[in-house]
């Protein structure tokens, strides 16, 4: 039985992609839910402000956006790793589809 040794970059990149999509999902659920519950169908009498922003914009968009900016630092410098990308093969001609190569292998 052949033992598969998947490239380190593939494994790490897959994990990082899953994490990125998880962050996207959390941001989507939080922002849309918060803004929908607090920012729709209100009157201006009930409105408060944080800096220039209506309360629901500040807590629903500005705060998570700021968290994402800060999160980018540990995401990029702690969670993501570095791996060699490898040498590029000569690409002046289109890479051959491996169809024939594989069939004859």
């Amino acid at each position, binding site marked *: 039985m052949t033992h598969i040794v998947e490239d380190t970059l*593939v494994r790490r990149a897959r994990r990082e992609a899953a994490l990125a999509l998880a962050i996207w999902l959390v941001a989507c659920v939080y*922002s849309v839910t918060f803004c929908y519950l607090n920012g*729709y169908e*209100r009157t201006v009498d009930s409105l408060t402000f944080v800096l220039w922003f209506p309360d629901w914009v500040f807590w629903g968009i500005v705060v998570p956006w700021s968290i994402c900016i800060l999160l980018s630092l540990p995401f990029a410098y702690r969670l993501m790793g570095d*791996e060699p990308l490898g040498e590029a093969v000569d690409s002046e001609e289109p890479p051959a589809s491996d169809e024939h190569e594989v069939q004859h292998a």
Partner: protein
Amino acid sequence: MPETVTQLSVGYGPIIMLLAMMGFSVWLGTQAQKAVERGGFMQGYFLGNRGLGAWALALTATVQSGGTFMGFPSLVYTHGWIVALWIGSYMVVPITGFAVLGKRFAQLSRRTGAITVPDLFDARYGDQRVGLVASLAILGFLTFLMIAQFKAGALVMKLTWPGTETMALIETATADAAQHAYDTRYLIGLGVFALTVVGYTLIGGFLASVWTDMFQSVLMLIGVVLLFVLIVPYVSRDGMDQPTLKAVAATGDAYAFGPGFSTTGLAFLPLGAAVSFFFTWPIGGVGTPAGMVRLMACKDTPTIRRSIVLLSFYNGLIYLPLIVICICGRALMPGGFAPDEIVPRLAIWAAPDVPGGSLVSGLILAAPFGAVMATVSTFLVVIASGVVRDIYQRFLRPHAESNEIRWVTYGVMVLLGVIGVVANINPVQFLQKLVVFSTSATASTFVAPALMLAYWRRATAAGSLAGMLGGATMVLSLFTAGPLVEGKPMFEPYQLLGLDPIVWGLAVSSALSVSVSLITSPPPDELVAKLFDAPPSVRAATQS
């Protein structure tokens, strides 16, 4: 500063800045040409010798087109604070745009020698049909979008002409601009714009496109900072709540809340649309062919990591202040002009008291113009590479000499420029809607097959084909059903269950990609091993 603006006078500042920007772009093209010539023509001209650094990658890979950049302030001005939620998903675009596919696309393009996105699909799936469908999708969806951008560039040139009284950047709601679309200034603007963009792109290829894109991104940041400093403190001098309260007084309570202020009776951002735009920007950005090419061209993995941080800060500095600026714009100028004019009006309103005010206005106005130039340049490279690499070289002349490829490339770019000009003598419509349509269509075509390409060993050529064709068909069907079934205007889609077409396109594409892959024969082990497994030396070390 005047309290309101009824008549704006356009001096020489804007046209001087535009001409300076065009001259600088051509100079960048010549510098790019020198860098291109250090390697082979194909790698250099279409991929910048795989040497993009963090700044170039961060500021050019996911930033939206000129149309979107110009349309966004207009949306804030028109609909109010709800546009913060419409654009809110940009908070995660840097992470999704680079971390989802970045490393693998950079690695796979090196392992396979791929230069274009269809190259990569072809090599990964071992089937030329996949590359061909990818190529045709890129040509189809991007060509229309590129042509539409020519009009925006021509209009900016026309409207910044000294003495012009009406200023609007794009065609929507610019009745006066539309009435005079055929006039001499427009045609001169169209010609000069096309010559400049095609010229510098032709000279420097991919790098020229990237460097000018980066330049305009910096210019945009400067423009936003200047506008913020000049306008926001003035409007909020009596309190930070004043911009919103004044804008609400001029419109209505809906301006401060969802689903947004509207004069047409149609809700701008109901719940389904809010969810949809969290797909459109972050997930659509992942599936943009122009973005994928930039990932393939990045230098190394530290570049990708640094780009995430740089773009995170850049997006935060651009979009949040721009929302506040445009709310202040509504407070200052309650109406009476086309919403697309808001940024130029604010630029000219704010600058007179500043030393060199006309040039400051010009600097701010040059930013969106640069965005249009960069967008057209990007599309020129991607489309030309599709024609030359994926069709001419792959199917017609596989062993063509470098010089022949070079001249064919130049010919294709000139041809695209001519098509852009001819198509816009009678200007195309729906620029903003075309941006959303094109983003939805390309995302639905490419995202699922690209994810499988990068991470799923079991993915097959048939699955990828089914995903691409299914996603594209779904989006096209919904955009066709809008006018046909509901009598909506062109490019207004049918929103099934309140969700935009991109959500359904991605769902159909993902379902088809996975299910068809599972019911077709697995790809050859040799092909998968070559693209997923550690190099033989590492494997040997592990097994010993």
